[in-house]
């Protein structure tokens, strides 16, 4: 039995009402699919006084795909993203990523917004109260030491979203909204700016601010894909992942974007690899050289299954496979 801690459930019927509740109550957290937050709450990691249930909000359910781009509401289910034939055709990286989040049944519940705002994860954090009490608490919750890297001053919990590397590679922007006391204020930022390299202060949302949706640019000629390494073929979070988007013009690679997941506390843009690929003709030799640069500047610690070196190596293997597939 893992009962939920007590909270008051708020069920707003409009985005404005939801933002007002989130602005008014500092102890409130937004609830979308619940497949991440409710698990953490059962483990005693979060004990919000209120949950603001976003399921009733039509504003978050928008799914618009046209020749100029796409707007995907934060409340759209991952299984809808996975199965949408236009997304599969134009933004395959996103479709592939949504299809490997947890398991198909969880994809029926989890939302795009929930995966974009997914909490960072660590062996020493995502455990029951009993486990954490026995082992000793960690920096991210109730403790004053990082159990994975005891000499470090910061939290190394791992960025574990599947859809975000794909979305960043595809050039996504995040639409955010909050209530300033009188009206709803919207802002739009490049999605990568939403994340911080810090397992605790992982997301750059203001208090009471909510992700409304994600905007994608037109997909003219874009080839993209996403590969995820994990222990089992389903259910697990990524141990390493890679998303690539690019165009091919006159036999050369253009607008190349390579984004890595699960190797740091935020998504990592593989800029050295991207520079080498940009404008070049794909060849096995080039891809092998590029692969060596994958994961440079990332230093994962031992806080997930598999050693950090193994996770980085698998990111290289998967990057090579994906680049080979996309340039074929």
């Amino acid at each position, binding site marked *: *039995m*893992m*009962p*939920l*801690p*007590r*909270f*008051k*459930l708020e*069920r707003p019927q409009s985005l404005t009402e939801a933002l007002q509740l989130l602005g008014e109550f500092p102890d409130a957290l937004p*609830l979308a*699919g*619940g*497949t991440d937050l*409710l*698990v953490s709450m*059962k*483990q005693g990691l979060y004990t919000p006084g209120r*949950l603001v*249930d976003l*399921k009733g909000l039509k504003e978050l359910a928008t799914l618009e795909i046209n020749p100029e781009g796409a707007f995907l509401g934060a409340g759209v289910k991952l*299984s809808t993203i996975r199965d949408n034939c236009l997304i599969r055709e134009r933004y395959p990286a996103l479709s592939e990523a949504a299809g490997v989040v*947890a*398991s*198909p*049944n*969880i994809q*029926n*519940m989890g939302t795009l917004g929930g995966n974009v705002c997914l909490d960072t994860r660590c062996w020493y954090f995502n455990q029951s109260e009993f486990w954490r009490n026995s082992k000793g608490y960690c920096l991210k919750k109730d403790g004053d030491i990082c159990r994975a890297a005891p000499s470090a001053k910061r939290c190394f919990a791992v960025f574990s979203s599947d859809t975000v590397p794909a979305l960043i590679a595809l050039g996504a922007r995040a639409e955010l909204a909050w209530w300033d006391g009188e009206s709803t204020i919207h802002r739009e930022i490049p999605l990568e700016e939403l994340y911080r390299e810090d397992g605790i202060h992982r997301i750059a949302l203001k208090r009471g601010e909510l992700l409304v949706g994600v905007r994608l640019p037109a997909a003219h000629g874009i080839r993209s894909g996403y590969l995820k390494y994990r222990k089992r*073929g*389903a*259910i697990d979070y990524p141990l390493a992942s890679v998303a690539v988007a690019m165009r091919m013009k006159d036999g050369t690679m253009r607008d190349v974007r390579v984004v890595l997941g699960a190797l740091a506390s935020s998504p990592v843009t593989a800029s050295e690899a991207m520079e080498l690929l940009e404008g070049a003709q794909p060849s096995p030799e080039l891809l092998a050289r590029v692969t060596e640069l994958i994961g440079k500047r990332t230093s994962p610690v031992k806080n997930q299954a598999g050693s950090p070196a193994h996770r980085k190596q698998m990111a290289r293997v998967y990057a090579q496979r994906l680049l080979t597939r996309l340039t074929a």
Partner: protein
Amino acid sequence: MIIVQMTVNGNPIEVGVGDEETLLETLRQRLGLTGTKQGCDLGDCGSCTVLLDGKPVLSCLTLAADAQGHEIVTIEGLAQGEDLHPVQRAFHEAGAVQCGFCTPGMVLTAKALLDTNPNPDRETIKGALSGNLCRCTGYVKIVNAVEIAAKVYPEGA
């Protein structure tokens, strides 16, 4: 207390639930439908799977309040009197049940698959069932069972 109106196995019901109550707790403790199993209670194992508007979801991570207005099917809702549902019959025939704890979730996930895709290949079946863990069978007979059930779909459904 929140009053929730939903349809459970075809019967419209109205039940009072707590804010922090999961659909799994409501089904098992308030409605006595203990066919839905409580396994890990954390969204890993799939044994609490029920159908919400025909789609398999995990009742341990669904707030009971969010079932408002929805149609829920549990394992108790599949058989028609003494007549087992084709998927149940196939699990029996194939010997796909050992301890039986994962079976309700497996059967419901398989039913949802066959309802949308009556002719799945083995890989599709494995993919659809990948969120339902079984610690006994090694899965081979479970996949066999879904193949057997597929032969009588949709006529037998």
